[in-house]
């Protein structure tokens, strides 16, 4: 495991984006499963659903919500990068520019969104 992480640390951009794609993917899936359960509570009536919502209204969950948005944005933008590398003929040649482009696009989408969401923390 340590060797594996060291290999990624020494590697180029591709391995980093691959590792982060995997971590954010698993993270979003775990939230999706939780989200299916909390939404299912609406079938039990207003009290059960409000109970779930009150949990999400706690500051720790609001921070988690911002992390979730980061995971979705990064996973989406990096997914587009992967598709371009797979299907666009210049994709492999310009892989470095595509990587930095994906970093910038993630920041441009995530930072203002996080600012709006963060303003509701207090």
């Amino acid at each position, binding site marked *: 495991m340590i060797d594996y992480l060291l290999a990624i640390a020494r590697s180029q951009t591709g391995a980093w984006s691959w590792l982060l794609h995997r971590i954010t993917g698993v993270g979003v899936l775990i939230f999706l499963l939780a989200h299916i359960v909390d*939404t*299912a509570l609406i079938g039990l*009536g*207003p009290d059960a659903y409000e109970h779930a919502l009150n949990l999400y209204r706690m500051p720790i969950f609001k921070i988690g919500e911002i992390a979730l*948005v980061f995971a979705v944005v990064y996973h989406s933008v990096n*997914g587009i990068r992967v598709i371009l590398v797979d299907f666009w003929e210049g994709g492999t040649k310009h892989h470095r520019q595509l990587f930095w482009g994906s970093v910038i696009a993630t920041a441009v989408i995530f930072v203002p*969104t996080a600012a709006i969401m963060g303003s509701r923390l207090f």
Partner: protein
Amino acid sequence: MITTAYGTRARPTNNFEVYSWFFMRVSGVVLLLMVFGHLAIMHVINSVDTINYWWVAERMATPFWRTYDWIILVLALLHGMNGMRVIVDDYVHTRGWRTWCMAVLWVVGFIFLSLGSLVLFTFTPVPRPV
């Protein structure tokens, strides 16, 4: 027949991995568009502070949003579960554990798809108190 630097072999008859690879890209693009819309409406324009039972009940009164949410449910679960399958393929090497992991993924996928679909198709709000 396929000829490679390593010799000649029969063309694989099972195209599952090709379909899986293609599905991840197609569902990924559809999910990107639909989930960004979902996040904008539910997490940016509105939030957990403004959303409540009655708000969701009103939203679910439109077949459009039920369909929209169901498409996200199906695609996101399949995309996520297939991603987990690839991860299991990468890290779990013993036959017994792999079988066990795959069984868990199928059962979890089936249960959550059923639960999510059940709610989206059967939810009828209680009458609003006046």
